[in-house]
């Protein structure tokens, strides 16, 4: 059976294999996260009884995904969310007062006729083709492309788990029901019989009519006022009538809802590139499962293709078929640092970088089964994606320096020096007021599932972390720039979220005007001593009018000097102007993230929010001075486009990168030590060796009083609103540690660098291969609370080298 991807596995074997996979994935009797998620979705169904048939092409792709994210965010924002449901209690419906299911405005806008037409159109296709799937696929594709434009509206209306507490937002809940595409059995008819499908609910038909027209009208887009949730019942995890064994795992964790904001607190649904999208098509209807199976199985055989995975063997152990996504993204050229001799070039100077975009981007590429372009690989961003156990700063400086030396795993005799920096943690509760202006690219190119909807999700996540003394504004640009939301008090979340949701894309990009407007808004609301930031979300297709990238960089730098910083979030693929996005944040006192999933959005805007928003030191430069007596040559791994001239180090007019609260920064040097002859005492003249550098035949003399230091790390930084830099110096002696004496962090950072080098096909890779990286990384996994290292391991396995 060549089209069976488990050739060697019998069905029974397959069944047990799956049991084992589930068993090893999850400990415990019940997956309470899942059940709580489901509970919330069932609540919604209860409030929106589906009586209509569904358009099979409407989108549910991202619902489950951001439900899960919603849960994660719920954990991140305690005391803000209420999750109630039958899985956790036996109480009857607590939502007295929220009786209204369909706000009157919705009813008025319904159009059963249009819906009928849409239905019959599809039905007609099915009837005439008599089960030919090719034409049905075409219909689907067409509906899908139309529905993409819908996606932002639709997605915006979807309700992540945590917000289900806002039962008042009936409007978007009904939208979601439309989107979930599951129809009641009443209206569905087996295709074989070819009877007309019924149209039921007005809400559903309203949706269909908009699909037919291609986009929602203005009226449709703005949600009607709905009643706020009148009741918020605190979760009591000790309820004895809890249907689950372990109540404490329920999402309550003491979460009490403090009067949820009125209507829309929804966030859009991101679809993760390459991930499965489940379309709850309504075709299982009245036909029994078995007969439909038979029918579909034969048709699938007709149209099915066989995909041979790279390693068939792997399938027999743990099958996974990679998805293919095209990428036409553009990357700048990266030229790696080469070995320099310490004698000729004792100083190495670079600007620090806390961006992580390169890692999340290459994660997306690897997960989709593509080969990573070498220029997309910025090793320092890969290393800095992870969290490390660097010691907290104590004392006057806002960060602490942590140094370590160990062996190079890929070049015998060489050493790796790890230079670590840890920024002080500013407590989220005591952070200064934020003045944020979102600058959102809503041009036509943002019109895909992994772009604008995900942008909305990311922004909504961020907004959730805002408070009353924060200010949020939204500027959009596409063809024309405009203010989608004037600077608004951060406590008025519903208003802000509403503005985010209602964004739709279209038009070409005019980034220049948009960015200038955004900065102006930010400047107008400037908070002295606070966080002033423009957050740009784009796919990089930044048709910036007459501005070149350099001009943009200048603008960003200038604004940074005045105290308004920039964060850039890249989205999507196929258009990603990675080079440009990285450039405008390099020295522009900005940070650059690539958001490939809701999970990443949550990391950047929730978990790591303080680091994202709060700069604790700016223009941070590092200069390492190598001791030629101990170091023959050295090579800085990564930071290829962060190098500074040595004299830039002490020049305060020269910009460099920033460190955010809690950030850690790691730089690795590979060193070829001089004198691999530790047992020869100083002052000895070696008879049988010549000093080649001396240019003439001269005996090698082991220098006397040679400092034992390997190097000294010098660091300059400015306070966020400072003008002059402060200097720190830390010398380092190589203690000769072997690999097993190095820290997990050392080995992990080195493993990550190793993967980067392999992906870039580095000339310095030496003995490096995938297995070596894997072994190193596995040994360094440690506690891995955020599971990022585990994810890394899988990337190493899956990467095409």
């Amino acid at each position, binding site marked *: 059976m060549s089209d069976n991807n488990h050739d060697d596995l019998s069905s029974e074997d397959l069944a047990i294999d799956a049991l084992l996979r589930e068993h090893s994935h999850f400990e415990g009797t019940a997956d309470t996260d899942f059940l709580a998620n489901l509970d919330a979705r069932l609540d919604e169904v209860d409030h929106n009884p589906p009586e209509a048939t569904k358009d099979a092409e409407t989108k549910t792709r991202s619902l489950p995904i951001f439900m899960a994210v919603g849960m994660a965010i719920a954990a991140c924002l305690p005391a803000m969310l209420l999750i109630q449901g039958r899985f956790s209690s036996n109480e009857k419906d607590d939502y007295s007062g929220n009786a209204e299911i369909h706000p009157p405005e919705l009813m008025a806008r319904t159009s059963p006729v249009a819906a009928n037409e849409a239905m019959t159109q599809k039905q007609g296709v099915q009837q005439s083709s008599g089960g030919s799937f090719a034409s049905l696929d075409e219909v689907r594709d067409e509906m899908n492309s139309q529905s993409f434009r819908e996606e932002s509206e639709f997605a915006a209306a979807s309700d992540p788990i945590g917000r289900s507490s806002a039962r008042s937002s009936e409007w978007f809940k009904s939208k979601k029901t439309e989107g979930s595409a599951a129809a009641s059995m009443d209206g569905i008819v087996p295709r074989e019989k070819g009877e007309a499908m019924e149209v039921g609910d007005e809400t559903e038909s309203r949706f269909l009519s908009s699909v037919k027209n291609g986009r929602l009208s203005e009226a449709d887009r703005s949600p009607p006022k709905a009643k706020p949730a009148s009741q918020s019942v605190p979760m009591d995890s000790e309820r004895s009538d809890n249907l689950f064994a372990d109540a404490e795992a329920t999402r309550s964790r003491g979460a009490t809802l403090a009067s949820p904001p009125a209507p829309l607190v929804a966030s859009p649904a991101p679809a993760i590139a390459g991930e499965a999208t489940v379309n*709850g098509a309504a075709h299982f209807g009245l036909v029994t*499962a078995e007969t439909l199976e038979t029918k579909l199985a034969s048709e699938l055989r007709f149209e099915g293709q066989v995909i041979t995975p790279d390693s068939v063997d792997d399938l027999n152990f743990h099958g996974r078929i990679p998805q293919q996504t095209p990428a036409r993204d553009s990357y700048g050229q990266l030229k790696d640092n080469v070995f320099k001799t310490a004698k000729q070039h004792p100083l190495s100077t670079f600007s620090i970088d806390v961006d992580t975009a390169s890692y999340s981007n290459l994660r997306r590429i690897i997960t989709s089964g593509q080969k990573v372009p070498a220029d997309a690989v910025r090793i320092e961003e890969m290393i800095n994606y992870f969290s490390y156990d660097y010691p907290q700063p104590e004392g006057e400086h806002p960060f602490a320096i942590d140094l370590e030396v160990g062996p190079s795993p890929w070049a015998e005799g060489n050493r790796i020096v790890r230079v670590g920096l840890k920024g002080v943690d500013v407590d989220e509760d005591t952070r200064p007021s934020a003045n944020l202006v979102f600058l959102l690219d809503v041009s036509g190119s943002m019109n895909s599932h992994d772009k604008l909807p995900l942008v909305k999700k990311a922004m909504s996540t961020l907004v959730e972390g805002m408070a009353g003394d924060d200010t949020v504004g939204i500027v959009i640009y596409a063809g024309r720039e405009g203010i989608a939301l004037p600077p608004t008090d951060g406590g008025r979340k519903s208003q802000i979220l509403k503005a985010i949701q209602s964004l739709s894309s279209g038009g070409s990009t005019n980034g220049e005007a948009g960015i200038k407007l955004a900065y102006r808004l930010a400047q107008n609301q400037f908070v002295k001593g606070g966080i002033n930031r423009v957050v740009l979300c784009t796919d990089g297709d930044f048709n910036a009018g007459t501005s070149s990238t350099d001009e943009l960089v200048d603008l960003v730098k200038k604004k940074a000097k005045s105290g308004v910083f920039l964060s850039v979030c890249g989205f999507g693929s196929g258009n990603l102007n990675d080079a440009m996005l990285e450039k405008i944040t390099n020295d522009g006192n900005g940070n650059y993230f690539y958001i490939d999933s809701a999970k990443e959005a949550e990391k950047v805007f929730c978990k790591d929010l303080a680091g994202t928003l709060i700069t604790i030191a700016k223009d941070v430069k590092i200069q390492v001075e190598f001791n030629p007596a101990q170091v023959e040559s050295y090579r800085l791994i990564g930071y290829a486009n962060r190098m500074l001239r040595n004299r830039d180090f002490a020049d305060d007019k020269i910009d460099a990168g920033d460190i955010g609260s809690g950030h850690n920064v790691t730089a690795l040097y590979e060193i070829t030590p001089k004198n691999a002859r530790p047992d020869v005492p100083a002052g000895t003249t070696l008879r049988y060796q010549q000093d080649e550098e001396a240019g003439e035949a001269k005996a090698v003399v082991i220098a006397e009083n040679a400092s034992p230091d390997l190097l000294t790390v010098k660091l300059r930084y400015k306070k966020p609103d400072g003008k002059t830099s402060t200097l720190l110096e830390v010398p380092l002696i190589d203690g000769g540690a072997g690999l097993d004496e190095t820290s997990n962090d050392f080995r992990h950072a080195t493993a990550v660098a190793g993967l980067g080098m392999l992906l870039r096909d580095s000339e310095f890779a030496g003995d490096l291969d995938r297995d070596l990286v894997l072994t190193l990384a596995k040994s360094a996994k440690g506690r891995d609370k955020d599971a990022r290292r585990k994810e890394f391991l899988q990337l190493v396995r899956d990467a095409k080298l």
Partner: protein
Amino acid sequence: MDREHFSREVTKHHRQLFAYAISLTSSDPHRARDLVQEALVTAYKNLTKFDVSRDFGSWVRGIIRNHWRDELRKKRPVPFEHDVLEALEEEHQHWDEFADSGSDLFEQLGDCIASLPDNFRAAVQQIYFVGDSGREAAEALATSESALRKRLQRAREQLRNCLQEHTPNPTA
């Protein structure tokens, strides 16, 4: 069936449903959960069509299959032969006994793993719990990949038999 009842059934069956979804999509447990969640929402919406005298597990698995098929339509990965699906369904129907009698299938599975002979258990650990690939695991266990593959097959067979032995008698 009302919502309470539905919830109880889901609680009993959900993890087995995950495993079912995993075998269909040969993918990771996260994606399986997404698939199962969608299917359960669909199931709930069509609760009125569910005959309580029928088998909850089979019914939901049917919905999972349909959702899965629909997904396939778009991506066209490798489909399953019909008889593979049938056999899978049969396995799961046997395991439904655990859920139906209030026992924990996975707890029993854990016990069965523990009772495997050492080298079988080690192989299962390495592949499923440590998460090694076939090649890595073979190296870790100092054996060849083909030998390891066979060992795993035998281990899985034993586990299957063990589960069968410990299947609780269906409650009346």
